């Protein structure tokens, strides 16, 4: 990161500066966290650490916890966690939150949902904040101009005790996207294209700022999906300077801000942008016109191709290590080098996760499946991102469309995004998924994941194979 003597600053540098409690050395600062979010599976050992050392939570009101990763999503009214270990994780989190006075969202809370869906939907993400969570997809919050990133459990303990983090400064990267996304494509396709082009470690060590016409044309929910997946390129943060669309989104969701206090906040938020002369350590630019529906074929999110393209030929890869990586991935996904993805049969559809289970995603799915049926031999499930999303989809009649088409309409949670609850794929099952990771075994041992947009997953649901949604017709 550049030194503080320069006058033009990037948005990232401004956010770090306004949260620096102390400079620790030339690489590290003590960074203040406005909000710290916890789930049931990366926090228990942190609370245990506090108990062992007799330390307290410094500012409980700046923390919250939610049960989301391990809970069942069957469409029953009262959810009971059957697995004894998982039930203990949930009750342990509840007990820890009660003991320390930390706001908590339990499995059957009407506002429960995936952490990265519920936090912004209730106005808890505001521009200019620093937000930490023991979960890598905390980069999601950059969509509203907040610096969010994932931390480990030792750091969770540190944040609980001190509301700060010993933070190694990131380098800065700007990704400019010009033009407009073409028909049939979404921010999911854009980020899959970017990750493919810069690689799964292309942004490693960087805080990435997305800018350009195509970015600001995206809805806030589409921006969440974009920033969410920036971590799949290794980013240590993803930012979009807040604009009028962001202010409108926030004005609706922050009822505590009105009149004078809203004006004061808006005045602050309008300054949250990189200065004209600010320099970045790395820059990329892309043209949105090049985006097509993207689908992954391998076991890393950068192993993606446009639906009209083909999986690489091994002979075309010069680098030996890269060739081995591709070969290994294709053995796992049971696909052949040089083949197309279009037409590959799938047995499962999963629409869910903190990437793509918000109301706009469900609307996109409904648009495709309305009046159609889920293909025979395909099991298709929709797991809304939160209780609010679920209710909204019911009010809008989307749930009926899904049920009529033959989808399972389930309760909110992480579910088959990481398959830590009982939603697990059997070996060899191929899944069209709106999630963010296609790692080996992510959705179940030997299960095969193809990442894609909600509309593309919907198209796969009705045809039973990977399909270009643009050719499906109205």
């Amino acid at each position, binding site marked *: 990161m550049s030194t503080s003597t320069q006058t033009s600053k990037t948005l990232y540098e401004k956010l770090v500066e306004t949260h620096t*409690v102390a400079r620790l050395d030339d690489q590290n600062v003590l960074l203040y966290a406005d909000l710290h979010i916890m789930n049931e599976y990366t926090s228990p050992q942190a609370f245990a650490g506090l108990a062992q050392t007799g330390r307290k939570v410094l500012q409980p009101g700046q923390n919250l916890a939610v049960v989301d990763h391990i809970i069942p999503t069957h469409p029953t009214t009262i959810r009971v966690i059957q697995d004894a270990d998982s039930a203990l994780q949930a009750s342990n989190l509840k007990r820890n939150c009660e003991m320390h006075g930390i706001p908590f969202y339990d499995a059957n809370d009407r506002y429960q949902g995936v952490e990265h869906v519920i936090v912004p939907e209730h106005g808890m993400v*505001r521009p200019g904040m620093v937000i930490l969570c023991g979960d890598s997809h905390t980069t999601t919050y950059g969509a509203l101009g907040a610096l969010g990133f994932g931390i480990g459990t030792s*750091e969770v303990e*540190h944040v609980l005790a001190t509301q700060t983090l010993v933070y190694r400064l990131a380098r800065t990267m700007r990704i400019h996207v010009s033009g407009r996304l073409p028909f049939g494509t979404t921010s999911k396709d854009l980020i899959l294209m970017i990750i493919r082009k810069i690689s799964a*470690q292309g942004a490693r060590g960087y805080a990435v700022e997305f800018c350009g016409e195509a970015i600001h044309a995206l809805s806030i929910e589409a921006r969440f999906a974009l920033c969410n997946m920036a971590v799949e390129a290794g980013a240590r943060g993803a930012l979009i300077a807040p604009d009028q669309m962001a202010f409108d989104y926030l004005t609706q969701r922050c009822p505590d801000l009105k009149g004078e206090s809203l004006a004061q906040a808006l005045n602050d938020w309008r300054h949250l942008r990189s200065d004209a002369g600010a320099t970045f350590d790395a820059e990329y630019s892309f043209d949105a016109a090049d985006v097509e529906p993207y689908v992954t074929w391998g076991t890393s999110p950068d192993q993606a191709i446009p639906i009209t393209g083909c999986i690489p030929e091994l002979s075309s890869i010069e680098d030996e290590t890269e060739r081995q990586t591709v070969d290994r991935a294709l053995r796992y996904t049971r696909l052949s080098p040089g083949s197309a993805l279009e037409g590959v049969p799938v047995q499962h559809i999963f629409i869910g996760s903190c990437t793509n289970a918000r109301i706009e995603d469900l609307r996109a799915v409904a648009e495709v499946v309305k009046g159609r049926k889920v293909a025979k031999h395909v099991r298709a499930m929709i797991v809304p991102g939160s209780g609010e999303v679920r209710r909204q989809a019911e009010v809008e009649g989307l749930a009926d469309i899904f049920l009529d088409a033959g989808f399972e309409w389930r309760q909110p949670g992480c579910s088959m995004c990481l398959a830590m609850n009982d939603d697990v794929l059997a070996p060899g099952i191929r899944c069209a998924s709106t999630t963010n990771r296609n790692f080996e075994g992510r959705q179940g041992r030997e299960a095969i994941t193809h990442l894609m947009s909600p509309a593309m997953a919907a198209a796969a649901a009705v045809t039973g194979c990977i399909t270009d949604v643009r050719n499906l017709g109205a």
Partner: protein
Amino acid sequence: MTRLSKIEGVAAPLPIANLDTDQIIPKQFLRRIDKAGLADGILYDMRFDSNGDKRGDFVLNQPAYADSKILVAGQNFGCGSSREHAVWGLLEFGIKAVIAPSFGEIFYSNAMNNNLLLVALEENAVEAILRDVINPQYSQICIDIEAMTVRSHSQSASFSLSERHRRMFLEGLDMIGATLSMEDQIRAFAQAHWQHKPWLKDIAATTRKRLV
């Protein structure tokens, strides 16, 4: 925190790019509320087949590498999920250091916070070391944290470590204790911060109250 200045032992070759934390420790091992027993889950799908039988061809199942203390891995090792269980599990498994061209960012911090040494070397250097350790006769590696050097049978290389991380290994450091010595400064910072941005104070508690 224990002190550590040298790591010596057998190194196992694991040249796989983007070996993510989901693979280092699969989700079914993340259901507990303590750190015990995580070694069982380390690289589970690589060590065991779907019947739960050991895969004889996997490096860590071979007698020559059964007691490995070090892994020599591919680029972007530990990318993906933030689960610190990956680090706790590797340590319990007996791994004290990983050598690779690059590491996932969150994994890097997690490892350093637990004294699992991560040594980043140029890709060529890692490949040269791999060529040594692939031969069980030449699988010994010595890492000197004080001098920041790695020695394999035929190679020697230097690595860098931030001063802070180096001290964490050499001196052992209670990070939370160190930060808590600045508690007054943190509280004063928060007060000033909220004065300018009152909409951030107790944001989680206020929202929870509104959402009853």
